[in-house]
Each structure stands twice: as C-alpha cells, then as structure tokens.
C-alpha cells in the first residue's frame, strides 16, 4: 500500500484501530479514552466501533488503571493502558516498575505481562511543572520495561504496532507537540526494525543522536549547518529499549564527534546513559567528548519564554554543533 499523508495523532489511532480489528483481545483502558476520545483526541471514535467493553473509560485512578491492565495482560488480553500525561507516572510507578516489569522474572518466566502503556510528555504548551516533563529516564532505568518514543508519523504507527507485538511491557511515550504534525504513513513499511536507530540525515562531520520531538529541531539545525559547510548526520533512536548501538558506533567512528540532543533535563537522562555507552564503545575514535545537549536541570516553568528557553531549540542545537565541530564559539558562550 502506498504512503498516505496523515497526522501523528491519526497514525496512532490507525495503529490502535488496526490492532483492535486484527485481535479482539486488544483493549484500551484509561481516562477519557472513550466518550471524550482522549485528552489529545487520539482515541476519538474508537468506542463507537469497538464498544465500551474494549474502549474503557476509567475513573481517575491511575495506579489501578495500570494494575488492572497488568492483570488483564497476565490472563490473556492485550491491554493498551493510557496515562494521560507521563507526569502521572510517579503515581503508577509501583505497578509499572515493581509489578509489570518484574513479573516474568520473579515468577521464573511463567507470567509475562504483554502490556502497552501509552502516554505523552514534553514541553511547548506552557502546561507547567506537572504536565510538561520528559520522564523517559525513569522508565529507562527499570529492567524489564521496553521503551519507545516515536518522532515521525510513520513511527507513531509502527512503533505502537511493534509495542503490541512485544511479549513484554512496553511504554510508548508520545510527544504532545507532535500530535498535529503531518507526514507520510505507510502501514506496510516501517522506518526501521524494532530496536533499530534510523539515520534521518547523512553527514560526515558530526553524529547527532536524538529522539522524539528533538529530531525535528535537530533536522532544522542540520539544514542550517549545511549552509555553513558543516555536515551533520542525524540519527533518530526511536527505541530506547531495545536499542541496537551498532549503527551509532559505526557513525561515530566515521565522524569522531557526537552530540546527543534530548528535551529531558540532562542530569540522569537517557542521553547521559547513551553518552556513557558510546564513550565506552567509541573511545578510541573520539576527537571530542560525546556532548549532551538537553533541557536545563530545572522543573518546567509556566512562563512561555522561560519554558522555551529551558529546552533546546534548533538555534541552540546548531550553535552547539558548530562550536563542537568548528570551534566557533556562540554568543552565549561563557
């Protein structure tokens, strides 16, 4: 089937729709997923097609939503639980990290939890400190949890389908700033295999590794840098667990410089972990330390100006990349 132009939001809905059509065990459970159609409109209309038994509007009881989804997964259903904001993950962390993630292991491989937890994070809407965070590191730290973060329309579809095909708990973190983004969707052809990073732009001066919304800021930056004679390879991680590091290592060995861009605060971030892993693997090929560019280590402020300045922009990414490659210091250099 040929690619069609659609939105990130509709691609996710398409993935849910196709999965529910193909397998009657797939259910949706979460706050406002039914009648309201999802806080961001992702599940709009699905209750009309699949009914209230498969599209379940839950009370505002996040721990029990995830806990119930775990039980359903243990006993044969294929639940897609929705956490309206990733910020609420603190409330469900016990169910996620102590129950879902560890069940297969603690019980000697008997009881797997094929659960998908959909949620969304990120800044850009002045939703303030409790509705704007990038908390993928909390999930990333837990053995037993898979974690994917789609940046493109096609990945929004295929990574969710991949999550549904995975026998273990998978957390899918969408970005609230991408739902209306348009792009091609080809339901037959994924951008890359499950766990594989995808090179979104080729370049030979710098390897820029990123994921989620920062992919788009990074691509804008790479385009701007091309006119300055700096060639940036932009790699989209897509899957944070599982993650095949080989293409990253191969790229860094060629380019000898790497920049990891994330929206999350840098301290304790996934970017920090990826940086450490790649430093270990690419040590003998590096001309510069693998650099991390991320959000400031602060809660997200509500003021639009403060919020915007607290996370990387295309300008900041381009400035930093240029500084790293050509040693041309930006105006904000201290």
């Amino acid at each position: 089937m040929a690619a069609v132009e659609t939105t990130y939001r509709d691609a996710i809905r398409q993935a849910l729709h196709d999965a529910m059509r193909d397998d009657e065990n797939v259910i949706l459970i979460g706050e406002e997923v039914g009648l309201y159609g999802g806080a961001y409109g992702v599940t709009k209309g699905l209750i009309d097609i699949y009914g209230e038994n498969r599209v379940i509007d839950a009370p505002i009881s996040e721990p029990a939503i995830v806990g119930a989804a775990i039980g359903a997964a243990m006993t044969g259903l294929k639940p897609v639980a929705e956490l309206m904001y990733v910020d609420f993950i603190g409330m469900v962390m016990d169910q996620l990290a102590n129950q879902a993630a560890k069940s297969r292991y603690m019980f000697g491989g008997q009881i797997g939890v094929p659960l998908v937890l959909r949620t969304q994070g990120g800044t850009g809407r002045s939703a303030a400190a409790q509705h704007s965070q990038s908390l993928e590191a909390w999930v990333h730290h837990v053995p037993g949890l898979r974690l994917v973060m789609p940046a493109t329309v096609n990945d929004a579809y295929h990574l969710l389908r991949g999550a549904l095909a995975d026998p273990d708990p998978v957390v899918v973190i969408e970005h609230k700033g991408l739902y209306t983004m348009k792009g091609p969707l080809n339901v037959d052809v994924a951008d890359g295999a499950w766990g594989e990073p995808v090179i979104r732009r080729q370049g030979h001066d710098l390897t820029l590794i990123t994921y989620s919304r920062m992919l788009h800021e990074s691509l804008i930056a790479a385009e701007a840098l091309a006119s300055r004679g700096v060639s940036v390879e932009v790699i989209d991680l897509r899957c944070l667990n599982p993650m095949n590091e080989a293409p990253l290592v191969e790229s860094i060995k060629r380019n000898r410089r790497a920049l990891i861009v994330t929206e999350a605060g840098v301290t304790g971030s996934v970017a920090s972990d990826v940086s450490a892993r790649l430093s270990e693997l690419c040590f003998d090929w590096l001309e510069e330390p693998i650099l991390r560019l991320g959000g400031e280590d602060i809660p997200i402020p509500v003021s639009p100006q403060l919020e915007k300045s607290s996370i990387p922009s295309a300008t900041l990414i381009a400035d930093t990349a240029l500084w790293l490659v050509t040693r041309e210091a930006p105006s904000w250099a201290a």
Partner: protein
Amino acid sequence: MGRLTINLPRLGETMEEARVTAWIVAPNAAFKRGDILLEVETDKTVVEVPALQDGIMLAHLVAEGDVVALEAPIAEIEAHIIAAIAVLGTAKTVPNILPEINYIPQGQPEPVVAASANGIAASPAARAMARQMNVPLFAVSGTGRNGRITANDVEKGQCKTTVVLLHGLFDNHRGWRDLPQRLMQAGHEIANIDLPGHGGLLPQAQDFEDAVQIISQHLSQTLTGTNVIIVGHSLGAALGASVAAELQKLRLISVKGLLMLAPAGLGARINANFMDGMMAASSVTAFKNCLALLEAAPLSDAVLAAERDRLIVQRPAISALAGSAAKDGFQQVNIGPLLDTLKIPVIAVFGLKDQIINWQDCAALPQNIASHFLRDAGHLPHTHAPEFIVRLINSFNTTGLRPEQAG
C-alpha cells in the same frame, strides 16, 4: 467604537485549524461581551468562540463548513472597546519556533576542565592513532581545542627527525667528518652543535652539569615539538645521555633514541696523556702525536695547524668543562645510574682499539642497552665505519616510543 477583524484564536493545545460548525451571531446583530459568536470543531472537540467585547457583527469572513487556519480572519465587527483593555492593543504574534537563546547564566564559578601539569592534551582518537603509527604524542603539535592533539595532527604530524650531534671534548662540529652529509642523504635533519666553549653559539659552561643545561635549553628553544635522535661521541655521549634525561623531563621534545660512540662517563680511567696533551700541546708535532692516540685517519699539516690554533684560543673556555669531566686520568662523571632512568632506546658503540677510554667500560652499561664493538676502530668509530653508524641511527626511526611511555 472601532472596526475590528477577529481572527481564529487558539482554542486547544494541539489546534492548528478548525472547521466552522455554526455561526451563532448573524451579520448586523449586536452582541455582548461573553456571548458566543460561533462554534468551531477543532481536532479534539467542538468549541465555542465568545466575544471579547460588546459590538455588532458586520460580516462573516468564513462560512459554516469552512476549515480555517489558526489566526486566520473569521469576522469583521464593530467593537465597543472597554477602557481598561483599549490600551493593550492586539494579541501578540504566535511564538517563534526558533527562540533566541541569549540568557546570561547565573554567576557561579564554572569548573574548568583541568589539564594536568604533566598530561598531554590529545583526543582518544589521536592517542589511538599515535599508538597505531608508533608516534610519540609529545612530538606532535595539537591544532584542536585548547591545543589538543587530534588524530589528524598525528596523521599529518609525522614530523621529521632531527639528529643532534654532540662531539667530544676538544673537538668541534667538523670532527664528525662526512657523517652529517651521509645522514642528510638518508633524509635526516641535522643539528650539529659545538659544545659549550668549543666555538659556536653556546656560552661557556662552568662544569658538566652546566653544559647539560645549556645544551638542553638550546635544543628546547630550537627544536620544540620535534623528534630528535641524539648522537654523542666520548664526552658528547655522556652529555647526550644527560641531555636525553633532561629532555625526557621537559617533554618539549621527543627523544627517539640515543647513540653513544666511545662514551665517557662509564668507567674510572681516561688516558691522562691525551687529556694533558690536548690541554698543553703548542707545537703542531706535539698536537699531531696527541691526536694519533685517537687512531683516526691522519690530517694534513694545514688542517692540524688550524685545529691547534683553534684549540689554543678555546682552551680557557674548555678547561672548566674538561676539569669537571676528568682529572688526573680519572673520569669525574658517571652516567650509569642515569642510563637506567632513560625510557628510550640506547645504543653504544665501542672501538676495540680505543686508547682514550677503555672499551671494557661497556660492562657498566645497563642490560637493556645494545652494544656494538668495532674490531679495528679506535676512539672515533664514526670515522672508521660511517655507513654502519648511519644504519644504527636509522634504526631508531623504526623502533620509536610506545605512547604509554611517552604519556
């Protein structure tokens, strides 16, 4: 009163456009602040657009069913502007997607990445490359950030090796005969130095140690960032070993090897007749007899006379150095312990017919120093077998230093 165009406001977090589902206020109808003007359907839900002031609807600019972009004009109204709001003007533009980053970081001392006093700033890639190519890092000048050595620097910076020639006591740079020419033909740069007090640029030395410092500083100033091979003869060999140790500390020059020809500083004795003769001889004949002890090819009388004249002039400047090196037939310098500390390849060459210094002094060499013995050579092995000496010098270029030793 004022005529205003109403644009479609942002009505939801992810809204980029909306479809007009119903106009509530018809053209020419009056409305109050807060009245619903129209309903639109966004990507999420149906939304009401209320009036922000009292007024009269003049015209609908979009029809029911139209899909309207964010901030696009939707209606013309005649507005009754409220005093407190009137001064405020219209809504701001949509936030720029590329924000200016111009904040000034708060005043906190920023940790500076410290370069350790002894460390060489080189990227991991440069270190790996240097290891692979057998290039000592401190011989490479860095062009990277803060002078850091890059892999590229290592690749390009396979710098030429300079052979530093240190002649023996009483001799000068001409004493090497045709060795410099042979070395240049082999592709080496040459620094053929006159020892302190022996003419040339270097100041007079107070003693042996002083001469070591003078030579080391001279080399540091003239050859920083290069590789050198030190070739020393007799006292020049003892000086060369000491200079190599000094350069090893300074880390400005990479010493790739030390070749000692009939080296002084290993044993107890030295030929007192030679020493005394060289310090005292005034006639060409006496000078010739003295030089005969060297077991070298004979010189013409004209050259002998010129050398004697030079020596007579230089004796006062040489005497301090000579006195600190040997006295009454006994050597005053012992380089044995120092050779132990050298981390570079060292080769020693002895002539078995040496009448100035006993070839048996080789017994004082550390075990890891290679020695060659030339059966028919005297105190000047390089004049006896120059081809062989060039081969020994070339061999340093292929052994080189391991970076671990360098760093």
